[in-house]
């Protein structure tokens, strides 16, 4: 399974005074098994772009291939695509509509025509993966949950479909630190098990640096940069100019470098930061004697 996007353009409210070119001539490919992080300021077109990948939005022009299937072709069966490409929306709380949590999560698998047992098994597994205790939450109304709990229900509903391509639009916004970490670990474990493609849209630069094989940077509807985390996060000035930033470790390393204490390498996480500082600060002392 791979993804190929060619010259994709999306225009909202075409022809009206306030028409917006939300995605502007974007092309890329994603290889089987790749983990892509997408960053970009609010309104840069991230959500619009990824909603094309499972056919929710239709482009103004351009084409998208999921594996061999051109999903932008006229006669494509959208159900087939949605089975393979799972999308967790940015505001998943609005995706909830059933009267209980377990029914809500079962909704997708039911549409796949699975047996009752299979559905039940998937619901339990998905709830476990997102850290919702079955006994406590299965029978509760999804509308009577805290913000973070609703988000987990929505994520569980998508992973219960076991999609080959999993797309998450800011899935950890509003989650407490532990749940945040749990969701990231869950994403990692799904990927490990299924080996599919994962696309993560996030404002958390540290998460993207840690998880992604490649980072896509969106700016004003365009794909402004593509590269490994080390390549993309090496340019803090550029990222700041477009409303973004770098992971905390990189921010601090750059600050120290500007004041004379330079590492001479790209520091992306706390491990690298610790090594650099421990070496520099104790090394100086040792080299004296």
């Amino acid at each position: 399974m791979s993804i190929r996007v060619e010259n994709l353009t999306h225009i909202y409210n075409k022809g009206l005074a306030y028409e917006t070119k939300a995605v502007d001539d974007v092309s890329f490919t994603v290889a089987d098994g790749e983990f892509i992080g997408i960053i970009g300021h609010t309104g840069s077109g991230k959500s619009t772009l990824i909603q094309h990948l499972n056919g929710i939005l239709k482009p103004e022009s351009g084409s998208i291939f999921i594996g061999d299937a051109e999903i932008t072709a006229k006669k494509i069966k959208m159900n087939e695509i949605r089975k393979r490409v799972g999308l967790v929306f940015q505001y998943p709380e609005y995706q909830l509509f059933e009267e209980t949590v377990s029914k809500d999560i079962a909704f997708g698998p039911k549409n796949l025509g699975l047996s009752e047992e299979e559905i039940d098994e998937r619901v339990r597994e998905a709830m476990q993966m997102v850290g919702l205790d079955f006994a406590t939450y299965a029978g509760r109304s999804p509308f009577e949950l805290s913000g973070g709990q609703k988000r987990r229900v929505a994520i569980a509903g998508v992973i219960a479909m076991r999609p080959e391509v999993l797309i998450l639009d800011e899935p950890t916004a509003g989650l407490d630190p532990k749940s945040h970490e749990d969701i990231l670990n869950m994403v990692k474990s799904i990927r490990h098990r299924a080996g599919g493609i994962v696309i993560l849209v996030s404002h958390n630069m540290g998460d993207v640096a840690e998880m992604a094989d490649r980072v896509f940077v969106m700016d004003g509807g365009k794909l402004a940069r593509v590269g490994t985390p080390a390549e993309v996060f090496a340019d803090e000035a550029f990222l700041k100019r477009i409303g973004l930033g770098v992971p905390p470790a990189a921010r601090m390393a750059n600050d120290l470098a500007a004041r004379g204490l330079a590492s001479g390498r790209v520091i992306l996480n706390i491990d690298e930061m610790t090594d650099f500082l421990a070496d520099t600060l104790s090394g100086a002392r040792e080299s004296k004697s």
Partner: protein
Amino acid sequence: MNFVKDDKMIRIEDLVFEYGWDEEEAAAPVNAVDHVSLEVERGSFTAVIGRNGSGKSTLAKNINALLLPASGRVIVDGFDTLDDAALWEIRQRVGMVFQNPDNQLVSAVVEDDVAFGPENLGVAPDEIRERIRFSLTAVDMYAHRKMAPHLLSGGQKQRVAIAGVIAMKPEIIIFDEPTAMLDPEGRAEVMGIIERLHEENITVVLITHFMEETLNSDRIVIMDRGRIAMEGTPAEIFSRTAEIEALDLKLPFAVELTARLKERGIDIPAGLITERALSEHLLTLWKGNETSDLCPSE
């Protein structure tokens, strides 16, 4: 009932709140807020953290009388939320800003959105114009007053939402995860405004999942299962690392880095909880090393 004004802006006394629950369910209802007592100083900045479902938003909604106590009391600037006659006074004093910038703005033009609240309070047109000016200026959005909100970035929308609250001249503003949906620049903008409001003696309550955003607060309150689990200054709170982790929270970056550097034998004093403070110290250490390198006689 009107109490004497004092230095406590909010007094929460043994507050219990439970949402209605399903009669058929065997399990007893869990109190969303469970015997909480808390006093908030006039003009202070209180950060509230805690895991999902711990009762933060429920507590906040009890402060502006969106929700009312099952037992206990909430007194806002002397007014009891259970007193029907006080509702107006309380709503005027407490403004709220929520997570999602997209569904807080209701009008087609920025300045209309800001005028919406004061209009509902029956403020005179001249006064409204003045309020639009100062509140949009306060969030650096006056130049955008004629724009349509949907053309703004997330951070800008959130600033307009804050202006709408400022225009009501509240004494307390409760921010319920105001930066959760924002990009790094938007987050920095909103945090800058929160700190400025605090400097101008607005009483600020900030609910957040970002530990970094609590570091300039006067006090952190940690909620757990409807109760207050910990309370203290940021430096106190983040020195209790084992407890923080047991509550499913995280240490701020500088605190985590300090712990790791100490393990590697680097000498760092307690209490450097911000990146800036830690950087200063590291630079001093490094310069000390450099000078001693240059002067071997030392």
